[in-house]
């Protein structure tokens, strides 16, 4: 219809398509594995040294410590009487 049949060319074509597809699939698998490893490395958990963060969220101790340390730091230190009887401001 469009030209003489050439089965040798077709055989060469199929072989090359198979080779190229295998190379492409191999490259794509390599890319997928590399991306996965990169993603896993980025999302690995970091160790927190802050003791407040290591407490269970919402526990009384953690809430109390957060309030005391951020809002009223003076509450953590004992209030001492001044020598004249007046309290320090």
């Amino acid at each position, binding site marked *: *219809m*469009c*030209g*003489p*049949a*050439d*089965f040798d*060319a*077709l055989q*060469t*074509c199929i072989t*090359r*398509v198979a080779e*190229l597809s295998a190379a*492409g699939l191999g*490259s*794509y698998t390599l*890319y997928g594995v590399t991306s996965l490893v990169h*993603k896993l490395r980025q999302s690995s958990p970091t160790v927190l040294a802050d003791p407040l963060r290591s407490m269970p969220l919402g526990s009384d101790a953690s809430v109390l410590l957060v309030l005391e340390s951020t809002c009223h730091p003076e509450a953590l230190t004992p209030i001492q009487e001044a020598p004249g009887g007046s309290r320090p401001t």
Partner: protein
Amino acid sequence: MVWYPRMNLDRINIREAMTCAVLGAGGAVVFQFVFPGGAISTLMHQVLHLPGPGAGIAVIIGPFAIMIATIACFLKPGAGRAFIASLTFVLMQILLSKLLVGSSNSKGMLGSPLFIAAVSIMGLMMELSLILTRKLGPVWRSIIAGSSANVALLVFCWTVIFPRTNGWIQLGSIPILMGLCLVFGLFFGYLGWLISRPLSKVLAPQQYKE
């Protein structure tokens, strides 16, 4: 961690245009290597017994050019990429056909000026589809652009090229060839998008967003 490029009408610079041109030329070299002369015609008509003319355009030549153009489009946002890649693809085809005598398509259509026009129209159709579907995700955009561009190429060949070389298409052959054209166009559009994802990290790393 998925990159969703948005096609807009940004101008592309010389370097980006050269990247698209190299992609198109490289695609033509791969095409010439994979499909030696006579292979497409034998596969379409002797093995698969598909009607013609246009089976090779709908199933192999068009989808391959679409895959190259889709890769060029999704490397970075910007208009004109599909057109440049398509044009260099077909020009490199002509050059290779002249250099490697006997390995070109037996119909001689691949090197004709009308085929340059056909592939250019295919590239323009892809540009238009990508602009019209810019609100959609990249997968939908790639398959819509691929299928519409393949249909544009096949219709142009049926109406302009084949009447001069092989004659008009028979009405009974249109449904099966049009169906194959749509299916292969959308599949190779999607394949082009898949290939563009790793390539975009290499060729256009600044566009890759975490």
